[in-house]
């Protein structure tokens, strides 16, 4: 969901950029091994949620940019609404009565 959301917000972006963004936005709370991003991106490619193409990065190097597909956008919607449901449930549980 984080990857989809990032791509939704930033538009086409390479793996490094996605990792940077997640790190910044979450203010370093979500610290995972950055490499685990790539198997996840592969799974999304298979599902057809993202497409990938080679482009030029800011530093003039070849980088692979991932772009959200319509199916990906739909999936993002699904995941956000499910996440919201879970969050609301948790909030209700932990709220002081």
């Amino acid at each position: 969901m984080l990857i989809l959301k990032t791509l939704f917000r930033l538009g086409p972006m390479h793996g490094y950029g996605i990792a940077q963004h997640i790190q910044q936005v979450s203010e370093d709370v979500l610290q995972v091994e950055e490499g685990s991003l790539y198997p996840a991106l592969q799974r999304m490619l298979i599902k057809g949620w993202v497409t990938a193409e080679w482009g030029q990065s800011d530093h003039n190097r070849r980088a692979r940019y991932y772009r959200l597909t319509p199916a990906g956008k739909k999936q993002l919607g699904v995941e956000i609404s499910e996440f919201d449901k879970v969050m609301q449930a948790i909030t209700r549980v932990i709220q002081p009565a």
Partner: protein
Amino acid sequence: MEWPGELWRRLLFAFRRRQFDRDLEEEMRFHLDMKAREAGPAAARKVFGNAALFQEQSREAWGWIALDQLFQDLRYALRTMRQSPGFTVVVILTLALGIGVNTAIFSFVDRLLLRPLPFPQSDRLATLYFRLPWYPTPYSSLSYPSYVYYRDHNNVLAGLAAYADIQVNMRFGDDTETVPGEIVSANYFSVLGVAPVLGRAFLADEDAVPGRNAVVMLAAEFWRRRFGGDPAIVGRQVAINGVSFTVVGIVPADYTGLQLDRTARPILWVPTMMYPVAVPFGSEWDLRHLWGDEWLSATGRLKPGATLSQAEANFAQLTDRLKPIWRAEELDEKDKLNGLLLPANESRFPPASRGTVTRFLAMLMAVVALVLLIACSNVASLMLARAVKRQREIGMRLALGAGRARLARQLLTEGLLLAFAGGAAGLTVALLTARSLAGFQPFGLQLLLGTGIDSRVLAFAFGLSVLTGVVFGLIPLRQVSHIELARALKAEGLRRGPRSFGARNLLVVAQVALSLVLLAGAGLFVRTLRNAQAADVTRNPENVLLLKLDLTARRYDTARGQRFYSALLDRLHALPGVRSAAYVLVVPFGGWRGGTDIVPHPGDKPVQVDFNAVSAEYFQTVGIPLVRGRAFEARDREGAAGAAVVNEQLARRFWPGEDPIGKQIQLVQPTRLAEIVGVVRDGRFRGYRADVNPCFYVPLAQRYYSAMNLEVRTAVNPGRLVAAVRHEIQSLDRDLIVPEVQTLRSFRDAGLGQERLSAALLSGLGILATLIAAIGIYGVLAFAVAERTREIGIRMALGAASRQVMRSVLTDALALIGSGVAIGLVAALALVRFISSLLYGVASTDPAVYAGTAAILIAVGALASYPPARRASRVDPMVALRCD
């Protein structure tokens, strides 16, 4: 919902995997470089994690790991197969046998019972049958006017087509060939849904006036063979029965017709209204208006929405409305007629034979299923033995970190690979088996059995292979899941606990038991065949040529026919190598008998007895012994006093204790008196199961028939006289069709197809099964002895005599064989109840058969266990104790 796209993407990437790997690597390098620029290379690597692992995971996401592993497994399986070629060959051959015979029998079942006829929506086709209350089997024939009535007045069929088999002479240059064909109504091909591959089908107008439109369609196969597939065939002329016909179309090669009970595929079609040319006697009658001449069959296609029962009700009404017409035509027997519609798929051979055919096929299926069980248990026991041997290897691989699931998958791959190899080899076995079994004509009627391997049969063999492969793969699997690492790795691991050895013993017992069932069945059918052949009254029938002479189509009068018969006999007698020659009306074992009424004593009521017409030398020619009096002679000619020869049964029945010679019999139809001049030995004529009936013979010279069987006893190999006999016939009448010549023995054996097939198949399979069981016994014992080497060594060191050791091994073996035999006997006795109706002259519980079979199996088993027992007795205690 998304998966087709997903599959496509996976596939696409599978073909570009090198590209993919490069992309991923570059992408990750880019990531690391960027990170390193920001935080330094060491920190970058730390934050990024294990790059190799992530690459692996990415690949796995695409599903290539599975593919990789499959290839690895296949390579590994092939390597193991190569390492033990003996094991591989035995397993593949055993499976080939099991799968092959099953596939062969399945191809029969499929062709005869399961597969729909090769016409579009063949389940909508129904064939018209009639049943008479006093006649047990429905028949399908009807007259042309009846057909037209049903065709024009029913409201349930989209079309009703009529057809009949014909045999016609086709002339090619100077050559005349007798070819099979069909005479069909103009709508025949459109009702069936068959489109000509070239030209067109018949037009309604071409089937309107007798003899007017000489048009013909040819079979594609015939067109290719005779005319080289020339597309200019349409419009050409061919000569049929001396009349020139115009070819209008070519019928596709996969057309088989509605009926399978024929000897050859039809190769030409003419419209029904060409009956004056194509049907014998057709030119003398107006078949359009002849209600009594039932020469056609009719099959229709149901209208969309109409059900078979609605159609049948409609046809019942029509049949009732036809009855007054039939009555007016003095066809009184039709008053009680019931019309019924049978699905064409279920009436591709006479419905009367359906029960017999189904029962016989069921027996064959059961037999080959037994064979597959034996093959499976043999392979299973081989796999078990190998699994034990491979335990250390498997333990090693587990220790090195192989996942159990992965190992299981690999073993399954091995099992499947073996099974597929077995299945592929099994197709060859199937082809050969089907071909040789079809040669027996086992169904009591001529059936056109294609013996090719087609997609359905292939699918069956494939399914069977998968099934067996999974089963085999799973056997060593059980062992994998039980392996304890430490034990497997130590030499100790090779010493098995009792469990898998018990499993192997069970498999051997099962093999012995199944072999016994097959062998006992073989014994019963061999006895049946012997008894059936012994019931034949003729002697040395292999030296007698038999051919059917049908003068009917030549339209000789009686005098001319008799002249032809005697002139031919004179010519045949002059041939070197001919001992004697004669004519007979009803050939023994021909499937039918002649019957007629006689009045044995003046004033008695007429009695029906068997009846036959023969020429003078008949009894001598086929070897039926003359018991009293004389056979027919030249003096029993037309105009002389009526003579008759009777069998012993008739003499005993009507003149018990008296000499029948000189007694007079009164024949009822035609009324005449015949004096008994001789008595011959009893014989069965209809078939071996028939009762011996009272029977009398009259001389052919005094009772003319236009169709007789010619029998020629030869002093030399009868095959060498076939051409000469044909030549003599054709030099008397060039236009007479001389059908196939065979020996009396092959004619008789053709009628015993089912018995011969059962005996041959069960014997062959029984012997193979026994061999397999013997190999199994040998394997189990050899293995047990090898495992017990140390124990035996200790016992011998402690003073056991080698004979005692040998005896203990043999006792173990006999215990296995004995329990197998016991179980087999029980199983066989339980199963034979189902085949007792197929046996003849032997009880299904015949003690001799079972005792013999058990003795054979015990002897074979003892023989197979002797080498391992001997090896055990030769164990050198010192070597044994040192061996590990």
